[in-house]
């Protein structure tokens, strides 16, 4: 049976997700993903007419339940130091990021 997600596509997905995966775990994940893909193919058979819109939320947001837009005012986050304290590496109040490699986009 044709696999929906062959190894090559799976490797690309793992790259996009920034995941280093041991071989055995990768094979388990690929098998489960293929089963999940088969289970969603039923969506292709739903009769959907041109009138049917896309629901970003099930619940409609109208004047009845939506807050007014808030004022566009900047303010300092009160948790600044507590947030910085969580960083694995800090230098003079900045979070240290390792070298960023450069690659040409295809």
């Amino acid at each position, binding site marked *: 049976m044709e696999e929906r997600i062959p190894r090559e596509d799976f490797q690309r997905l793992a790259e996009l*997700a*920034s995941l280093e995966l041991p071989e055995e*775990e990768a094979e388990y994940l690929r098998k489960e*993903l293929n089963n999940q893909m088969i289970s*969603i193919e039923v969506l292709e058979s739903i009769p959907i007419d041109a009138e049917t819109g896309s*629901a970003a939320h099930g*619940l409609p*947001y109208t004047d009845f339940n939506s807050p007014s837009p*808030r004022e566009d005012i900047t303010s300092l986050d009160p948790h600044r130091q507590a947030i910085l304290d969580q*960083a694995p590496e800090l230098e003079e109040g900045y979070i240290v990021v390792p070298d960023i490699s450069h690659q040409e986009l295809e």
Partner: protein
Amino acid sequence: MRTCDLPAYTIADLIKTKQISAVEVLDDVLERIRQVDGRPGEVDASPAETEEDLSTIHAFTQVTEEYAREQAGKIDQLIREGVNPGPLAGVPYTAKDIFTVKGIRSTAGSKILSNYFAPYSATVVERMEEAGAVMLGKVNLDEFTYGSSSESSAYKPVPRNPWDTSRVVGGSSGGSAAAVAAGEGAISLGTDTGGSIRHPASFCGTVGLKPTYGRVSRYGLIAFGSSLDCPGPLTRNITDAALALQAIAGQDPRDATSATVPVPDYLAEMEKEIRGMRIGLSEEYFRVTYFDADSLELVESPIDDQIRQAVLSAAGFLAQLGADIVTDVPLPHTKYGVPTYFVISRVEASSNLLRFDGVKYGYRTEESFKDLPELYRKTRGEGFGVEPKLRMLMGIYLSAAQFDKGYYQRALKARALIRQDFDTIFDPRGKYRLDALLTPTAPSTAFPIGSVYGDSVLMQYSDQLTATTNHAGIPGLSFPVGFDRDNLPIGAQVLGPDYSEGSLLRIARAYEIVTEKEAWRGQKPPLIADLDA
């Protein structure tokens, strides 16, 4: 009866009338935790192995005793000063470890957040504390809430069902349901993205309320599916669910999707009579359509007849009280609930999980790395368990332009159709004019630990009867309706139109009163019954 087994409303009343102190209540519930919970979940710890491990509940990832003592002391001080501490004065509660609590480790059940201490508290936690409740600690869950059995947590041992410790607790708010069922807190805060409050409530014999999307703020909730997530309470009775919802509901300026609709008096709504209410039954909710991994086909089968009969019996009791039961209500898109959920929830989950990178906070690999991408890959490969990895990979596959087959757009349209199904049956000028739909909460009772975990598709189909509610954004309330032959709890749920929580509480409360003297109501989890013997 011990204090820890009393309802929240009774505990608050006893404290406010100075018959007992908040510290005394806390002492009793901490003693219960020591008696039944066993070792708390820890990241990378061994799973349950010893006889003691296998016969205890493991609901907690951490008991915050010092924090709780400080809160209980403040409540007692207010009482001494003649100040009313609030409607939940001194009521012990737990929070699913997906809510941030200032200064407390907030892990989402994941290694990648195992060292994260939240700098702020979730709105629901702040509101519980403003109402006088006392937080006992954080309870276990499926990693990042991804699952229906709480087995995917990185924190081992995973929770075990108080009614039979060889069974799962359901999920993903499994620690919440187990804790409430075992008297380890009168209330627990959970979240429901595809059924994660109602499903474990059903498996553990508790009440679980998923509010209308936006009724309760999501601020401070570590996100899964942002268009689906709903915080809500799990309790041992309907009145406590109404009290807890009253405390946490309402607009929050820090969550732009929280609704501006006024919050009614749920206790008053709950006590109204149900005579004349129209309650529907739909055959679509008495069968399951699931993907069979052996034949690779969708298979349809009726749900367990014991569950069907328990729900029909509940409908009979409601009819005795004057409700009109409307049968054969059509909800034709129910069977697409899980496939639609597979798509929408994975796309939203993958977007939410990309922020965890080992740079700003949380776990970072101890291996060497040459540059930033390698740091990301190693940290995320080690820090996430299989469920988050699966959801990210699936979400990226479904949303990346190079693989796009239009499933996401199709799922958004399927969600619109599921919503239309509910709009049709709840339309006050339509053919059905229902106030609520009564259905089983889950297609099965609690299954044995290890029997489904690992089959990610079959596990997802456990949410078949709950996920549609989240797609539509409507509220749902699960409550116990009896036991099966193995003495495992059966849950039913009532679903209603937007912001109809008051009506749902009214129906469930009426059922609770009319079945008060039924023999099954007196049953206790064996672990608790043994303590009382």
